[in-house]
């Protein structure tokens, strides 16, 4: 197991290196001279020259990358061109908001997706199964920003139950915080719930055909106990690992959800930065999410080995 984990960790380093090259390369796609964007109305050649020197834009591309990656490794993601603040600071302020949203969405996805998947597998080829599959497919096909708009229309505009937008930090007032985030978290979680549902169903169908389930039934255990204690426990192994991977998808989906519900998180920051042509922030966000995703991937692998007793001794 140690050898496998060591090899897996070693694989992460070149991947992260390539991610950093890719993120750095994004800047090269930008039309025009970044110094001109940064200078705005100021077109004085001396000012432009100074900007180029400060950003090392006058250096060869390899040197620019080395300068950038050295700073990144020291926790310096650059300086926002628009807000005039370090990108690391901006990320540190906005990331907790998105993590709260993603965490709540993850719990909602688990609570909806896993029981629906179990029900679908246990009642295979019945109307329960067909309905659960239809709900799953609908969840996968629904654009979450549209679902968000429809929820605002129903829950906030018509019923007046929850605020349509805004955000209150957990530390300030936890009740208000939940009131402002529960609807966006539900919207964000439904797509992942559908993924959980499909995977749980498929894992449960496999588990229910195994010998140990047959033995448990033969011993005279009740069906409920067989399903929850024997089949589900084993079926959850791939679902747990999948869960770690889906956190990356949640970070991505948060971009749209935060836009719809005006939540000042990570996702809204990237969209605002795109329109302000604040490229260091865009680069910083892509780099941080990609790194988080690579690490979650690694965590998923480690979890898989740890949970699966057959691999533990390998």
């Amino acid at each position, binding site marked *: 197991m140690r050898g496998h984990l060591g090899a897996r960790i070693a694989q992460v380093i070149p991947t992260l290196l390539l991610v950093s090259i890719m993120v750095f390369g994004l800047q090269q796609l930008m039309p025009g001279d970044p110094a001109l964007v940064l200078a705005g109305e100021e077109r004085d050649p001396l000012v432009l020259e100074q900007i180029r020197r400060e950003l090392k834009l006058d250096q060869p591309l390899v040197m620019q990358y080395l300068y950038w990656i050295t700073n990144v490794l020291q926790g310096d993601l650059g300086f926002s061109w628009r807000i005039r603040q370090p990108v690391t600071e901006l990320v540190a302020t906005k990331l907790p908001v998105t993590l709260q949203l993603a965490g709540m969405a993850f719990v909602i996805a688990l609570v909806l997706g896993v029981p629906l998947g179990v029900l679908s597998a246990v009642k295979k080829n019945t109307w329960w199964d067909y309905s659960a599959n239809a709900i799953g497919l609908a969840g996968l096909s629904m*654009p979450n920003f549209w679902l968000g708009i429809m929820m605002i229309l129903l829950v906030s505009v018509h019923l007046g139950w929850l605020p349509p937008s805004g955000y209150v930090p957990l530390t300030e007032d936890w009740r208000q915080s939940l009131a402002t985030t529960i609807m966006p978290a539900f919207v964000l979680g439904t797509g992942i719930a559908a993924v959980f549902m499909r995977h749980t169903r498929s894992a449960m169908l496999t588990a229910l055909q195994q010998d140990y389930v047959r033995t448990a039934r033969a011993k005279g255990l009740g069906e409920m106990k067989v399903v929850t204690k024997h089949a589900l426990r084993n079926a959850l192994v791939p679902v747990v690992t999948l869960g770690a991977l889906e956190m990356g998808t949640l970070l*991505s989906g948060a971009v749209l959800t935060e836009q719809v519900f005006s939540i000042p998180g990570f996702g809204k920051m990237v969209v605002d930065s795109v329109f302000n042509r604040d490229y260091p922030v865009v680069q910083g966000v892509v780099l941080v*999410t990609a790194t988080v995703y690579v690490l979650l991937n690694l965590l998923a692998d480690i979890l898989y080995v740890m949970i699966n007793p057959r691999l533990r001794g390998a």
Partner: protein
Amino acid sequence: MSATSASTPNTAGAVMASASQSPARMAVRRFMSGPAAVVGLVVVVFFVVVATFAPLIAPFDPVKTSWTLIRKAPSWAHWMGTDENGRDVLSRIIWGARASLLAGVISVTIATGVGVPIGLLAGFVGGKTDMIIGRLVDAMLAAPFLILAIALAAFLGPSLQNAMIAIGITATPIFVRVARGATIDAATNDYVEAARALGNPPWRVAVRHILPNIVPPVMVQATLAIAGAIIAEASLSFLGLGQQPPAPSWGSMLNSAQRFLTQAPWLAVFPGAAIFLVVLSFNLVGDGLRDALDPRAK
């Protein structure tokens, strides 16, 4: 005993009948036996027809504004109402189908065109080439799909064309993986060994003997990817990074609808329903294709 002997000729007949059918014909038969996939296909064809004949079908000019028709609720004259500039929503949805389907098909064509040859190369050559390509794919897959597409669209500049390129590039690594896996699988077949033993050059073995075998999984992936690409285009347009106004697109229609939720909710209902319906249909077709082309995966 008699039952066994009676059933033997029938079974043999069935085997002979199925043997006489081509695998493609059998796959079509399996696909058509699934009602969900057929319904999905009908809806996809419907949207393709609507997008193709948009100029003939749309009752009004999708960009023509009218100050007297601002935010009118659905009526006999305007089945889906009018928007904040007095434009007919139904006409904009009909024209918007063009942007969505074009974005879906073109971006997936880019992803397939780039991803499949690379995946074929990685799977066929193996060794260091495979390892390098594998690492590159891992790196590209590391950035969440939408965030990478947003970043690419942002750096390339907002337009439908750039959104399609961004989605195409972002979707490429999945096709590399699918093509690589299918190539490795196909390369173990006896006829590939035979083709090699006969002295065929490697490129010929890859193109003539392996490529046709990786088409089914690529086709399934492409259908599902079109669904993903349509949502991605709608998302980018919703954020203002795709189709630019006044040209109609379902995503940008939802963006402007947000400002008039209380006064004109129909502006948000219809474009979203169109995205949902077309994406659901592509997913149904993709699932049906997967079951038809690889019955083991069912």
